[in-house]
């Protein structure tokens, strides 16, 4: 295959990776942004989504599409319920203390992982795609399901963006993110918001896993990679920045996909982690993260509308 089509194929693979990563990282970003909780168990919610999808499709084996749709509805709800219970029984009792919740979610990681190992075993489980069709490009045919994953992820992200920026629930989440105490003083039930955000964050990871499980396989150790990549994405995008998370997920997903196809997956991981190191050194707040001071309000900042005037005056 020529370089051009090969690059196109690699880009498509990258887009699939980016789509799933967007969903997974968005969950982690929401939880950190609103609750200031570093959820180390986030990858296990991803794994749980995939394993439950396998279990549900096995129970409803009449038609792959029927089982898959049922999994897409039921598994995220089950994962959300588990996250809801984890929040109420563990995180709330720790008063959402940042240090204590890291240790608690590490514990949660092992509890979920080992429970899945005991219940479903150590074997990798395949899930059938809901349908099989190939989209024929001039140079190669490509899986229609993979293209559907990209479209589905984009639609879910659009929905999430709409809820966060255009609805009152989203406004409550953003207000809680900026000032918890003031949010309470204006009638926002902060602890309820936290519980919902933690559950929804886990559900995003589960949906990402369910979409990708027909391409990969469900396995009790599959949560580590998405967790690592999500942390990379959230750090590069800017902690708590949804716009940054989506941009970074596309960047990392695409580079990961392209480098994996042209070179090796190991090199792709090396590039991602090196990028994080550079970002941490040169732009610690991430690509779109809030800086400590909003420098744009000062005329000596490039983003200020009076910046040119400021330069002119300073020259004189």
């Amino acid at each position, binding site marked *: 295959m020529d370089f051009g089509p090969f690059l196109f194929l690699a880009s498509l693979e990258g887009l699939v990776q980016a789509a799933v990563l967007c969903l997974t990282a968005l969950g982690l970003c929401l939880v950190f942004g609103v609750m200031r909780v570093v959820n180390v168990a986030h990858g296990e919610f991803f794994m749980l989504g995939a394993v439950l999808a396998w279990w549900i499709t096995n129970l409803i084996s009449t038609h792959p599409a029927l089982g898959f749709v049922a999994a897409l509805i039921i598994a995220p709800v089950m994962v959300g319920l588990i996250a809801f219970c984890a929040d109420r029984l563990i995180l709330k009792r720790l008063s959402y203390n940042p240090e204590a919740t890291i240790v608690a979610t590490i514990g949660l990681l092992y509890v979920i992982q080992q429970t899945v190992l005991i219940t479903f075993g150590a074997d990798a489980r395949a899930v059938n795609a809901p349908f099989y069709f190939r989209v024929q490009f001039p140079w190669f045919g490509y899986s229609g399901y993979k293209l559907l994953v990209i479209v589905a992820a984009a639609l879910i992200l659009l929905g999430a963006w709409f809820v966060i920026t255009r609805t*009152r629930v989203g*406004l409550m989440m953003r*207000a809680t993110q*900026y000032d918890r105490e003031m949010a309470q*003083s*204006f*009638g926002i039930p*902060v602890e309820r918001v936290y519980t919902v955000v933690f559950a929804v964050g886990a559900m995003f990871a589960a949906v990402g896993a369910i979409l990708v499980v027909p391409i990969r396989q469900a396995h009790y150790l599959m949560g580590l990679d998405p967790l690592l990549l999500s942390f990379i994405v959230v750090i590069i995008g800017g902690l708590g920045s949804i716009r940054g998370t989506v941009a970074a997920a596309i960047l990392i997903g695409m580079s990961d996909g392209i480098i994996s196809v042209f070179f090796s997956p190991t090199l792709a991981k090396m590039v991602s982690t090196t990028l994080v190191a550079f970002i941490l050194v040169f732009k610690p707040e991430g690509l779109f993260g809030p800086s400590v001071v909003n420098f744009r*309000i000062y005329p000596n900042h490039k983003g200020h509308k009076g910046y040119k005037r400021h330069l002119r005056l300073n020259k004189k």
Partner: protein
Amino acid sequence: MLKIEQLNAYYGTVQVLRDFSLSLGAGEVLCLFGRNGAGKTTALKSIMGLVQRTGSITVKGEELVNLAAHLIPRRGIGYVPQGRRLFAELTVAENMTIGLMARGLMTSGIMTKDRAAETRKKVLALFPPLASRLNQVAATLSGGEQQMLAMARALCLEPRVLLLDEPTEGLMPSMLATIREVIMALRHRGVAILLVEQRVEAVLPVADRVAFIENGRIKDVVGVEQLSENHGRLHKKYIGKYIGISQ
């Protein structure tokens, strides 16, 4: 309207308020004066349920001490905190919507959609500069506009009791007049106002009574006319003793 009895407030194991008692009638403005660290801000935070407290706080006879913090604004208590504490990355309109939501725009409260629109209009009439900046992010407003927004946000919940914590902090003299006018307007509407302030002269003209706090206890409550009568002798006694300003 607001009655506080035997209130004790704590930060962890440290007790800040001790047997703090006050009462405030409808349409009354009470200023709380005291030195730094005397417990003025803690008194307001206690009413809002933001610190641990025991004792009794009632609004129109309804007990607040056992309520969760987020339920207190629904009883008609508005709070303008020290340092404004706006939701900095939200727009002016969004900050005001949060104020409107506090009285039950989301749930079954007094605030219906029509009433919310009307309230918003009334509040913007009090602070005209905000009307042209509804889509501007709060962090980019000037200090005076931010203070207006902090007050507007609290007024959006149609408060029966308004708690103001140093509303004149860092403001230029022309803004002080605006703040005083708004306080007077609210007073005429029957809103009970508890005002914490360091700049005594800035707020005395709008106050009915003054309470002096020392080491978390109310030491004296006097009518504002007592402070200015007798050629400043009483003025000196109270202000010098409790705030440490020589007149």
